[in-house]
């Protein structure tokens, strides 16, 4: 589908932006890699079909000069030579037709295949990127690489490049035939082609300013619409409608003017070139007629092969001229659309060039039994995982120079529950992001059962850390598949057991198709509480030795709330747990409460001890500021 940025007339694209050769070259490399023989076939086919077209054009000359004219005036003209010639022509044309069909099919395979590979490569690479990539970009920006940018590339691969090649072949082959037929007429034709090329480029440059303005205005208006329509409810509540309309009308009119100015020039290109072609036609016809009539025979009036200009030659030449000038405009347009698409390929390759997550750890952690995890020493000895995690002197910043965690020191012994409390931006979530290495620490050490987490192979580290996030994300598919997401080799029975353990079974059973009910990714058909229960079941089926929980803050109805609480408690049993706590019960059950403020742990201890301190915890708990 065409994006909002393309409103110009058919067949005209203005030059925009700068061509970045490196990304275009990489794109060509990708196309070449899997398609060498297909490309060879395409090139061959284009050559064959262009030559066939040329043959049919040249045939008009032969038809008149060699067959028709000699027969005129004959009493009993013999048509058989003509019939033979026509059959020969038909054979050539059918070969050409086959070649052009084969070429189209091959192009489809090349372009679609390249797109498939490109999508695969993009996605595969994206999966290896660190979390910071996703956190620092809006989700719409990432999506548009897959939709808009890949789509522009599809056009370049599937249409622009083959057409460009075809135009080149046409130009070269017609040029050769023209020179052979007549030198002076070829000169006229070339002059006309050059003029057309210059005019097209000139119009392009002329329109560039307007197209830039148009792009700017489009961005502005779309931004305004996006913002105002998203805030439409607020607009209504504040009775801002009239003002919103006034602002919009102004912008809208400005946009209309800029689009008009740009399209106006875009629309001129077609008639200008068409009629330049017509003018060339006249010049050639006149000059040709003059030469033919005066029977000028100097070598410079002949063709390259020394043939004198005849009527048949002139007619054939006129068609050749048309074929010669058409691709000139086309080439200039195709070059522009490659330039336009290069912005898209830049974004695609920008994603491809992002640095992958560091994963230099060698130690593998494995699930060996029902609730049994082990790690292997270099000597091949299996040592059971206990789930002891400690952070020492950890400093961290998302952006250099803006430190968010300072000197974090804590140890969670196997089976202990550590609760983090504190205001937004205190650094609670950040700590949990470091344990499973969503982000890398700048200073200090995180140790898991005596192993530096950096020495543990990342995938196995993450597998051994269960996680339940505040925001529940589910995937389109069946309920049971969503639970199995925790451990892909879990049997149906194990999934159901996990659901039972965390109190999710009862609501799932009430769904129309039970565990086979298909849910959509945003879980639209489930309540928030039910989605949370599924996320807990997902963690339960993974049965990891260490858990990271981020309690949801939004309140849900009391019944589900109780279920979730019970489910969480079951899940935490016997596991080392880090929990970002919002529920009092969780906090009361914790072995240690860490009170965080501005990236530091400022208080730590049990509930009663902390209350007695009358510090920040007391303040948070009672809602009273202590003077």
């Amino acid at each position: 589908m065409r994006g909002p940025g393309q409103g110009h007339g058919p067949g005209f694209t203005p030059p925009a932006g700068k061509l970045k050769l490196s990304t275009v070259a990489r794109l060509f490399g990708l196309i070449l890699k899997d398609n060498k023989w297909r490309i060879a076939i395409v090139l061959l086919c284009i050559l064959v079909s262009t030559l066939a077209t040329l043959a049919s054009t040249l045939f008009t000359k032969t038809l008149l000069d060699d067959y028709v004219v000699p027969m005129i005036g004959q009493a009993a003209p013999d048509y058989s030579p003509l019939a033979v010639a026509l059959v020969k022509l038909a054979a050539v044309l059918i070969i050409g037709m086959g070649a052009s069909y084969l070429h189209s099919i091959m192009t489809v395979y090349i372009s679609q295949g390249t797109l498939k590979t490109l999508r695969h490569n993009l996605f595969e690479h994206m999966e290896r990127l660190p979390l910071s990539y996703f956190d620092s970009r809006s989700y719409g920006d990432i999506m548009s690489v897959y939709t808009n940018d890949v789509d522009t590339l599809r056009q370049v691969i599937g249409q622009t490049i083959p057409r460009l090649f075809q135009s080149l072949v046409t130009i070269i082959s017609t040029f050769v035939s023209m020179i052979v037929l007549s030198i002076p007429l070829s000169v006229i034709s070339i002059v006309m082609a050059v003029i057309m090329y210059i005019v097209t480029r000139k119009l392009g440059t002329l329109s560039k300013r307007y197209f830039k303005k148009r792009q700017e205005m489009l961005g502005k208006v779309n931004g305004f619409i996006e913002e105002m329509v998203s805030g439409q409810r607020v607009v209504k509540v504040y009775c801002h409608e009239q003002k919103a309309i006034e602002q919009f009308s102004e912008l809208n009119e400005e946009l209309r003017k800029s689009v008009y100015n740009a399209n106006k020039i875009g629309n001129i290109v077609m008639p200008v070139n068409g009629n330049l072609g017509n003018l060339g036609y006249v010049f050639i016809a006149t000059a040709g007629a003059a030469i033919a009539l005066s029977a000028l025979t100097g070598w410079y009036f002949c063709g390259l092969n020394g043939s004198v200009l005849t009527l048949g030659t002139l007619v054939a030449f006129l068609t050749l001229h048309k074929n010669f000038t058409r691709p000139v405009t086309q080439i200039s347009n195709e070059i522009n659309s490659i330039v336009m698409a290069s912005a898209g390929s830049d974004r695609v390759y920008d994603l491809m060039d992002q640095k992958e997550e560091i994963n230099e750890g060698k130690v593998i952690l494995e699930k060996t039994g029902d609730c049994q995890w082990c790690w292997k020493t270099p000597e091949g000895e299996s040592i059971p995982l206990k789930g002891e995690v400690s952070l020492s002197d950890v400093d961290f910043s998302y952006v250099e120079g803006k430190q968010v965690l300072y000197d974090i020191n804590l140890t969670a012994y196997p089976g202990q529950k550590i609760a983090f409390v504190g205001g937004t931006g205190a650094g609670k979530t950040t700590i949990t992001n470091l344990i499973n290495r969503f982000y890398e620490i700048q200073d200090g050490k995180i140790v898991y059962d005596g192993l530096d987490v950096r020495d543990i192979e990342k995938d196995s580290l993450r597998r051994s850390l269960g996680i339940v996030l505040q925001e529940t994300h589910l995937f389109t598919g069946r309920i049971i598949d969503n639970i199995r997401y925790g451990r892909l080799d879990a049997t149906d029975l194990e999934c159901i057991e996990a659901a039972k353990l965390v109190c999710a079974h009862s609501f799932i059973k009430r769904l129309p198709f039970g565990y086979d009910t298909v849910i959509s990714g945003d879980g639209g058909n489930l309540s928030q509480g039910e989605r949370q229960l599924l996320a807990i079941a997902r963690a339960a089926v993974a049965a990891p030795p260490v858990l990271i929980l981020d309690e949801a803050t939004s309140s849900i109805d009391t019944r589900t709330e109780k279920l979730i609480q019970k489910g969480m408690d079951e899940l935490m049993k016997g596991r080392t747990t880090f929990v970002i706590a919002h529920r009092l019960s969780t906090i009361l059950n914790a072995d240690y409460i860490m009170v965080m403020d501005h990236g530091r742990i400022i208080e730590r201890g049990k509930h009663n001890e902390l209350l007695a301190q009358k510090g920040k915890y007391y303040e948070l708990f009672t809602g009273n500021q202590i003077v």
Partner: protein
Amino acid sequence: MYKTILRQFKQYKTAAILTPVWTAAEVVLGVLIPYVTASIIDKGINAGSMPNVYKYGLYMVGMAFLSLLFGILAGRFAAYSSTGIAANLRDAMYKNIQRFSFSDIDKYSTAGLVTRMTTDVSNIQNAVQMLLRVSFRAPLNLISSVVMCFFINPRLSLIFLVAIVILATLLTLIIMRASKLFQQIFRKYDTLNAVVQENVSAIRVVKAYVREHHELSKLDKAALSLFRLNIKAEAIMALNGPVMNLVVYGCIISLSWFGAHYIVEGSLTTGQLTSLFSYVMMVLQALMMLSMIFVQLTQSAASVKRIAQVIDEEPDMTEDDSPVENVKDGSIEFNNVCFSYKEGGDYALVDINLRIEAGQTIGIIGGTGSGKSTLGSLISRLYDVSKGSIKIGGVDVRRYSLNRLRNQVAVVLQNNTLFSGTVLDNLRWGKEDATEEECRQACISACADEFISTLPDGYNTVVEQGGANFSGGQKQRLCIARALLKSPKVLILDDSTSAVDTATDGKIRQTFAERIPGTTKIIISHRILSIQHADKIVVMDDGRVKGFDTHDNLLKTNDIYKDIYTMQTSGAEGDFDETK
């Protein structure tokens, strides 16, 4: 449907009508040119007359210039009218959206409205421009070329007719087969995008469970089926080329054969034969254009439908003809109110009866889906009740002018929005001519001044789109200040302090009591702490009022309230820190 769109040509109508006129003139000239060429060959070259060559050459030059002129005019007018209608469509939609009620907005969704105003409008703009320039050109070209052929040689022209019929049939067949496949392809694109979308938004889950490979195989599966469908569809579309070639070549060969005969017989001249060759190309190009138009039309039909829907939408909320302008006081009365979001749908509120005195502070509590937000939104008539009535200051809300009502009943919505501009600009939404001091006072009441004054640019700090440079709690406080500037008779806070820490939450309540004692304050929250000090508390459950009393009384008599209270204070929800 198309009428709605066509009506929007308005001041650009003349241009839209003139475009095809210029095009027609251009086409006629374009068609005549090969005829003149034939004359150059026949009357000039064959007759050995150089003056004739010049004469017809001159004709042709003149015609080329005229055709250029008409072409440029057609291009200009097409650009003018197509961009004009696009602007008018945007305008018409935007104006009507401003009239939309909340339920209308719910119906379309924000994303739906934005796409309609951007992508759909561009689609129509392109289609209109193309239609104006091409749709007349193609049939005109077709007809005039055929006419010229008949003029030159009726017998040979029969070849054309046969060719046209064959080509038209084959092209239609191809397009019909392909367009069915393309529809399937669009759906497959959705599947593919959904995989990427889910993956990107749930990347933490994917990484936490090390499911990168699993996700990749999902994508590969979607990409593969898209690949297969595309190959199938494009292979069918690729037939276009050979079919075209087949017909063109067929024409050329039969023209050569029969043409040769006629020339030898003397009933056709060589010049005429060459112009016939030109007309073959013209006719076939015209047919190709027609098939393109057909594709474009089917593509833009969806956009036309979506836009017409918005423009034709009649907002479902009407104003009283002689509305009451002033809200006397902040007393609120619910009489047997029932409400459903969809006509004939399940009731979201059932039999609500409440009496609230002016100046009271009322808390509304209940779980998600209990109807507490819905109850609040009915007061400022964001939705109309399905049954019963709501009175403010003793007058039914439907009798007030909407503007006045909403200015005097201020709502701070759950998902409140800040707009790009400065902090002051945003505050002045509440009161257009508020002085800086007034704004500051409102911010002090909403505990927003404390963080605004620490910003380097203070009240002139620029708010990024969506308020991205403020934290959730700060945004909420700004929104409260904005509402306070209206000096409303009723202030409704719909979960508006959920991201504000408890201490500040308490401070805001305190300043409300001191600074706006006469305003009725309705606080909707799921936090007991936010509402327990209210004069009275409404307990909502499953769309019904299950209790309406003071905190102390409710604790004694109301089981639901007691349940929530125990859970929040000793059980499930401590919730004593800031949340997002």
